[in-house]
């Protein structure tokens, strides 16, 4: 549940979701669920020239399994907290 919690703290922040098909969407993270499905608001395509059909997209739901990367701002995360939480998760699994 680590990344679910991380993304909950990022709700309202701007992210870029890159999907496995190469499509990149810049938007405001509206919500996330346990499968890391995401809903983005105020979407703007990053590669508008390659994917003109996305020009009219405003809000969307993205299935977690199609995501490759989500780009974040360094200022939106606390790396020390992340590392600590990861160590705890790793020890819980033991």
């Amino acid at each position, binding site marked *: 549940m680590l990344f679910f919690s*991380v993304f909950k703290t990022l709700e309202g922040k701007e992210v870029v979701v890159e999907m496995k098909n190469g499509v990149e969407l810049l938007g405001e993270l509206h919500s996330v669920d346990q499968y890391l499905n995401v809903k983005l608001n105020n979407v703007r395509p990053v590669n508008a020239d390659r994917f003109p059909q996305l020009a009219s997209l405003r809000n969307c739901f993205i299935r977690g*399994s199609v995501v490759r990367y989500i780009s974040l701002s*360094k200022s939106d995360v606390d790396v020390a907290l992340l590392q600590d939480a990861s160590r705890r998760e790793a020890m819980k699994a033991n």
Partner: protein
Amino acid sequence: SLAELRERAMAAVKQPVDLVALSLDERVFVKCRGDRELRGTLHAFDQHLNMILGDVEETIREEVDGKTTERKREKEMLFVRGDVVILISPPVATQ
């Protein structure tokens, strides 16, 4: 305390995923599906190998007109979904 947590992490390498924990806050090399490689600082991971990397350089190898080219991109903070990960390792010595 943080030092105790770190010590216990070092001592408790039971599963392959525990090796990944040893690389927290270190530079790692990640080979991904789609002929991609990432180099970044490991800040977070889980049992699916979902990760958050900082100061990332992505290298993409592509075939364009029969020639293999390398493309690089940089991201300051990147979530990587675990199902694209092939391997995680400390950076290769030559880098």
